[in-house]
């Protein structure tokens, strides 16, 4: 057998193995996705949206408390995290740019984006839960906000830097003050990109469970008081799934389905926005 023949055989083997591993990986992922959809759709019903948690065994429980709690936790986190992240990102791109300070903030934010979120939970426990003596919706929101900040900051920074500097110069040439150039010209140019960043940031924190375990904790009933422990879809999912009760487990799948669909939708929308921007 010539060396070239050997190479051709080696090539076929590697190509087959790669395709096989792709099939294995994709197979696993499809398995998870189909289970999520089958169990989720099976568990969906109007009761889920209309009823609060109920003791196990009577089949009348819903997820209303967790859905509303989730919306409040993520909503408050975004209400603070998004503007703060955009402001900080604005500083990096428009004022600091290549300064040592900006570069350090970028580096640290990059690391924080991959840092373990459960540690943020521990931090918030120390600064909010322990001093106030109780788990609370606020503590959960703060944890989520901290996780969201670096994501919004970095995408804002990147997206603003993509705005051509000639656009800024043209505005400055008209005698426009800098804050107006930024808020009226630069933001407008980077609108789609920032919006995508916000959506991805919201999607990311919406799926967080670990930092909520000991901040917002959980509540089996509807609570809209942010100073009290509050239910979330993710922690509810965890508690219900690890419970021995079948109807609770079923609710857990429903929660997993609703949350995953929400997150996937945000991700897909975010991508479409970016595509649209590129298409222009």
């Amino acid at each position, binding site marked *: 057998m010539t060396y*070239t023949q050997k*190479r051709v055989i*080696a*090539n076929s083997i*590697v*190509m087959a*193995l*790669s*395709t096989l*591993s*792709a099939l*294995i*990986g*994709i197979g696993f*992922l499809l*398995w*998870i*996705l189909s*289970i*999520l959809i089958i169990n989720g759709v099976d568990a969906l019903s109007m009761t889920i949206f209309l009823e609060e948690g109920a003791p196990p065994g009577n089949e009348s429980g819903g997820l209303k408390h967790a859905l509303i709690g989730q919306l409040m936790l993520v909503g408050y986190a975004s209400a603070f995290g998004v503007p*703060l992240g955009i*402001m*900080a990102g*604005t*500083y990096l791109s428009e*004022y600091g740019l290549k300064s040592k*300070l900006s570069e350090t*903030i970028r580096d640290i934010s*990059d*690391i924080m984006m991959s*840092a*373990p979120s*459960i*540690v943020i*939970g*521990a*931090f918030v426990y120390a*600064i909010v839960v322990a001093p106030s003596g109780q*788990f609370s919706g606020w503590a959960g929101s703060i944890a989520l906000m*901290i996780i969201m*900040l*670096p994501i919004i*900051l970095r995408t804002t920074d*990147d997206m603003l830097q*993509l705005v051509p500097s000639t656009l800024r110069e043209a505005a400055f040439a008209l005698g426009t*003050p800098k*804050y107006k150039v930024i808020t009226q010209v630069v933001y407008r140019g980077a609108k789609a990109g920032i919006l995508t960043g916000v959506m991805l940031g919201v999607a990311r924190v919406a*799926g967080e*469970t*670990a930092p909520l375990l000991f901040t917002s904790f959980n509540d089996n009933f509807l609570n809209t008081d942010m100073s009290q422990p509050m239910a979330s879809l993710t922690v509810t*999912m*965890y508690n219900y*799934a690890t419970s021995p009760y079948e109807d609770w487990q079923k609710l*857990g*799948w429903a929660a997993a389905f609703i*949350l*995953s669909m929400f*997150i*996937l939708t945000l991700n897909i929308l975010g*991508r479409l926005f970016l595509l649209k921007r590129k298409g222009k």
Partner: protein
Amino acid sequence: MSSIIDKIFANATKFIAIGVLLLVAWIFSVLFEHSLKSIEAFGFSFLTETKWAPNLEKFGALPAIYGSVVSTFLAMILAVPIAIGIAIFLSEIAHAKIKTPVGVSIELLAAIPSVVYGMWGLFYFVPIIRDMFGGIGISMLTAGIVLSIMILPFMAAVTRDAMNTTPDILKESAYALGGTKWDVIKDIIIPYAKAGIIGSFILALGRAIGETMAVTFVMGNVHKISTDLTQPATSIPVTLANEFAEADSELYFSSLFELSLLLLVISFTIISIAKFYFLRRKRTGQ
């Protein structure tokens, strides 16, 4: 008037940006401060002691550290070859019509919350492990496998991206000398994208070691070091997730804070190595 608003706007953004930096410093210092009691009580032996007994006020982190290392290691050895396979498939084998949908689905799967992977592991994978290896199915091995599947989409996507940075013209030059696909992959693409590929793996490792929910369901939180992978075990994040809300003494809390600090330092180090040594950030906008 404009110039005052200008100043306020500039300083406000700067203040918040610096705030982000201070926040990170604050996180470290708060975790450290709350760890002090445990550090005083156990010193260095916290890291080497194998006994974690809250009722005896004795806290040794070695089982959790061991569990983190072993489960992450298992996840990596399972995920790395498959991620490379998927990346090769996506960048070099798949037809354009498959490439995009499969590539995008893999990226989307990376966005599915880890708690969902954990649930899948508990309900569908634990029984398989139980049937194959006996025991209760909740084990180090299960955690490693579920973790590997959890990090697979991220790893495959970034490996593919790294491989795709190889210029077409470079690959064509190797084909033009009579190279096969595999020749081109091993001789051109992998050497060219080496830093990016290794960086992606290390980044995935940094994420895996801090991953909580995917493993909490299936690991068991048993503070025991066992070489039998089919036995329940624990890891740093699993211990935190299970015990933080239940801790009932100052020393117990302090030990959990020290675990948090340890986890943060480990992840910070690994991610920094990946980001700064292997993946120099792409500068945009210039």
